[in-house]
């Protein structure tokens, strides 16, 4: 007993200190989190059970009907597919492109820095401005598309008016706009790769492609996994470019989840319905974020 007392006392003191720290430091963060993260989420979930146009009180409780409407809506599934397409195109085109370009410009020379700047520029542009510029370029009468078809004497092409092709136009812009960001990520990763490893591989007689696939790429693993994470999150958030280029048209074939939420929830003053879409989007995002962190990024 007498031996154990100081130990217990010490335990108690550290416990007290820890509690003091918690009491002191927790409330600001907790308050901010509650007010700006938890409450909006809780409120949106609450709204999603009502048929509400934003006016007056929440009176018409309709249970899960809004969710039923969401899952009945073909536009919702089209938006979901479109989000998926962004991710697929990002992995198959955008990230390899960014990787290739980053290998070319990773050197710390002046020319490389200039090119990095040029490739990074689209990312700096405001999304809406970039969207409007591209909207004009795709114009079949006056835009770049018109110049190209005119040059070859072809019939004018109206990419944005075609339900089959309009979304490809958006994918082009997405790849163009954001590949610079991933390039920068990879450049940063490449600059952290130990040169001596590459040198020793070279001495051992590795070909350039072997050097890339056996040394550089594995070392860039964390960056690649991070880039994929960003591309999925970016896809789930994509709105501005869609709004500026097609506003979801023609025939609602070019919506993403967020533009679907905006054009079908907010502009139609169906706050309950929009909230239901928001909750679904939230669940998808959370499931992905936690799942990906746990399964793929667990060692990073």
């Amino acid at each position, binding site marked *: 007993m007498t031996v154990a007392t100081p130990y217990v006392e010490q335990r108690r003191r550290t416990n007290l200190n820890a509690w003091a720290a918690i009491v002191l430091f927790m409330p600001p963060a907790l308050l901010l989190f509650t007010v*700006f993260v938890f409450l909006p989420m809780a409120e949106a979930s609450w709204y999603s059970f009502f048929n509400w146009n934003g006016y007056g009180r929440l009176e018409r409780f309709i249970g899960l009907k809004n969710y039923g409407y969401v899952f009945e809506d073909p536009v919702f599934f089209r938006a979901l597919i479109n989000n998926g397409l962004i991710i697929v195109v990002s992995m198959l085109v955008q990230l390899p492109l960014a990787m290739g370009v980053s290998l070319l410009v990773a050197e710390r020379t002046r020319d490389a820095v200039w090119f990095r700047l040029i490739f990074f520029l689209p990312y700096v542009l405001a999304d809406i401005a970039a969207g409007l510029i591209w909207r004009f370029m795709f114009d079949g009468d006056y835009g770049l598309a018109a110049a190209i078809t005119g040059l070859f004497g072809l019939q004018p092409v109206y990419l944005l008016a075609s339900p089959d092709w309009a979304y490809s136009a958006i994918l082009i812009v997405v790849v163009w706009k954001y590949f610079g960001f991933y390039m920068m990520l990879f450049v940063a990763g490449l600059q952290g790769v130990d040169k001596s490893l590459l040198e020793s591989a070279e001495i051992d007689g590795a070909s350039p492609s072997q050097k890339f696939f056996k040394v550089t790429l594995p070392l860039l693993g964390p960056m690649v996994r991070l880039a994929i994470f960003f591309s999925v999150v970016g896809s789930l958030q994509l709105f501005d470019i869609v709004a500026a280029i097609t506003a979801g048209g023609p025939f609602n074939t070019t919506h993403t989840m967020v533009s679907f939420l905006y054009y079908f929830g907010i502009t139609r003053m169906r706050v309950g319905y929009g909230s239901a879409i928001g909750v679904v989007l939230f669940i998808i995002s959370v499931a992905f974020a936690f799942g990906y962190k746990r399964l793929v990024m667990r060692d990073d």
Partner: protein
Amino acid sequence: MSFRTLALASACLLALGAGARADSTVTILHVNDNAGARAFWDTIAKDYEASHSGVKVEFKYLENEAFKAKLPTMLQSDDSRPSAFYSWGGGVMEAQVKAGFLKDITADVADVEKNLSQTADDAFKVDGKAYGVPWDTGGVPIFYNKKLFAKAGVKAEDIKTWDDFLAAIKALKAAGVTPIVVGAGEKWPMHFYYSYLVMRIGGAHALSDAKAGKDGGFKNATFVEAGKRLRELAALEPFQNGYLATSHQQSASTFGDGKAAMDLMGDWLLNMQSSSASDGKGLAEDDIGVMSFPTLPGGKGQASDILGGNHAFLVTKTASADAIDFLKFFSQEKYAKAAAEGGYYIPVYKGSEASIKDPIERQIATMLANTSYHQNFFDQDLGPSVGRVVNDISVAVAAGQMTPEAAAAAIQAAADQQ
């Protein structure tokens, strides 16, 4: 949450803005207007302040989309609720009445009403009670390019029926002229065709009957037939290339550049075709004509039934007596005439069309004054949730992406979910 912060933010803004306190302040929330019109509003406010000491009248402006997004919040907040605000009427106004945000001013405006256009006045009544004072009206005629009509040998006077209209389109196409320009990328310009077809086929009560669920609601034969006729028109490929992605602005510039023969559009096209044209001037007034939408064989609607918007200032529940008094003050012949002369809008004050200087605008105002029936824009009348579905299906039916039957069912489904 976002509503709460917005309300808070706007309340703070208002508190900051209200530096000069008068005994009573009348605030009127308006959508963005051009400089000339703003000066016009300010003059009226000053006139009123001069003759009513202790009352301050303030016009506040918000951009169209921002206006629509913020209004629900502002109406719920006791601090930022304006005394009166701009309204398109229709479904949104009905929702505001139902939520109890508006004031019944039937008794107050009884003596003003008799001077105003009956249809515009009725547009701001719900169950016979008046909630606002209308001041502006508008109409959607077919604008046509006289030179292009002459080139194709088409005479506007001969276009009375739907068949005449289709024949004119064939003649224009044969002459190598794009018959119609439409900004279908924004959808609502196409819904003018669908709306007019419903009005011409089903007559004045077609829309209100469908809203009330009579005879199958929106699934009834009128709406299906309207879709079939729209598809019949679109099958002739009368629209400019790539019309599904064209914005309203682009369509106005196409018309102003003389690259399309017709545009079914609101009276504002007159100014817009010149400001949006490549040369900044557009078509000369002499080269533009306006005509009514054609009638349909066996249809109940008349050629003089007209589609268009009416605008009013609606009075909120907490507005002071001064606010109502100001709106009555503003509804004088003097100001209606000034607005007509200045070309700011088409006043609803009876007889004011004679003061409009621009001949085409005067022609539209006269059409409006003599109309047998004035129908509010369908997408306003129905409110945003059902209205936007009408816009969607108008484009889809025209492009052959949706059958007329499925389109009618889609409107009904949206109405059921409301």
